[in-house]
Structure formats: structure tokens, C-alpha cells
């Protein structure tokens, strides 16, 4: 079980974090490190692509919430790309659909940042 993290620059000063694999108590620190590094470098507009994430638990959600809180302090935003119904369901039942922008594709998520 592992998570692959790929960070790439996109339009404007936005960055995309591509995640592949499973985000749990073991792998979420790796995701947290990538997001923290971007924020520390003053990149506050992020798209986190969860299209290739098969599983996420509360620690993964916690990392995303923590990132969102930090970028909002600087007027930034975190949008998510998510098409997996099971993962969407988790955002839905936790009420996190109300605090994250969740989109079906990267283009829409990027457009909504601006």
C-alpha cells in the first residue's frame, strides 16, 4: 500500500498535486509534506487530483482540511478533482462537500480557482 505524489505547476501561480494510490494513516504524512511544502513556498491556489486515489480515510481528509485552512488564511483555495463514487460518498457524509470545491475534471477545478 503506497501513495504516489506528483506536484506540477499549472496556470498562473496554481499548482496541481496528483495523488495515486491509497491515503491512510500510514501514507497521509507523505501527502501532508507535499502540500505543506507548496504552502511554505507561498503557493496558495491548489488543485488536488484524487482521480487515481482508490481509498481515503479520516487522516487523509484531515490533511486536506489542514491544507485548505492554511491556504484560506492567505486568500487561497484548494479544489479537488474526484470521480470515485466511494470517495465522493465520504466527502458527502462528512459534510466536507460544503467546504471543498469538488469537480469531475482538472480543467473545471482549475477554472474555479480563479
Amino acid at each position, binding site marked *: 500500500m503506497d501513495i504516489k505524489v506528483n506536484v506540477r505547476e499549472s496556470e498562473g501561480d496554481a499548482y496541481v498535486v496528483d495523488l495515486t494510490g491509497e491515503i*491512510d*494513516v500510514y501514507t497521509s504524512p507523505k501527502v501532508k509534506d507535499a502540500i505543506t511544502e507548496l504552502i511554505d513556498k507561498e503557493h496558495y491556489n491548489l488543485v488536488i487530483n484524487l482521480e487515481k486515489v482508490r*481509498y481515503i*480515510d*479520516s*487522516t487523509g481528509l484531515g490533511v486536506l482540511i489542514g491544507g485548505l485552512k492554511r491556504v484560506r488564511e492567505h486568500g487561497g483555495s484548494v479544489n479537488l478533482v474526484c470521480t470515485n463514487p466511494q470517495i465522493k460518498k465520504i466527502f458527502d*457524509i*462528512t*459534510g466536507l462537500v460544503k467546504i471543498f470545491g469538488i469537480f469531475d475534471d482538472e480543467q473545471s477545478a482549475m477554472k474555479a480557482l480563479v
Partner: protein
Amino acid sequence: MTPAAQSAERTSHGTVELKIPGRAEWVAVARLAVAAVASRLRFSVDEIDDIKLAIAEACTNSIQSAGGVDAGVIEIICDAFENELCVVVRDHSRGHQLGAKVGSLAEGRTEELGVFLIRALMDTVEYTSDARGTELIMTKRVTP
């Protein structure tokens, strides 16, 4: 009657017991093992995903309550009934938080998120904590 007592009154079709080290890298083993047991019943794929997540959250809770380093041994006991799976997750710590509310999540509190998910995904959740440890008893019924 509590879910545990109800389960005790019925005949289990099979019991699977697993002990994992209470460390983060072992949680995936627990959730996959319980998913394998759940697949012996007539659960849908979505229901098995719910069970996997609930069991992982219970194990994660044990690890986090031990400071996130090593929770000792975590015991997972699965009892398969005709139309229901009962899973007990037991550790030797005390005092997990089991009172999450949705409202607190929007305010950014994440420490109780796991417990909230367990309650949302399983049909019954029973919790005991004493000097010997903490036990979480969860059941999930097969949707007819």
C-alpha cells in the same frame, strides 16, 4: 439488548481473529482481512468498502490514542452471521473519543472525524473502555 449481546445469542457462521501490531503500516492489513471476511457474506461492493473504512478508522483511532507511535497489539475479531457481520476492535489503551458531530468538521476539527465515519458507515457501534483497554463493537447488516 446491546448489539454484542444480540450477536452472542445467535450462531456465528464463522469467526476470524486477527492480531496486528498497533502501528500505521499494519492498518491496511486489517482492513483487507476484514474485507475478505465481509466478502463471504452477501454484502455489496459499496458495503464492503464501508466496512473496510470503519475497521481502518477503529485501528487508526487506537494508534492515535496511543500517541500515534505504537498502540501495542490491536485485536480484530470478525463474526459472520447469516445477514450480518460483527467486528470487534480491541486495544489496550483507554479513552477514545466517540462524540463527533458534523458541525464540528466544518469548523476544522478533524480528530473526531474517524469516529464520525464509523458511526455513519456501520449499523450499530458499541464502545467500552476500562482499565484493560478499549473495545469497539460494530455491526453491519446485509441490505436485503
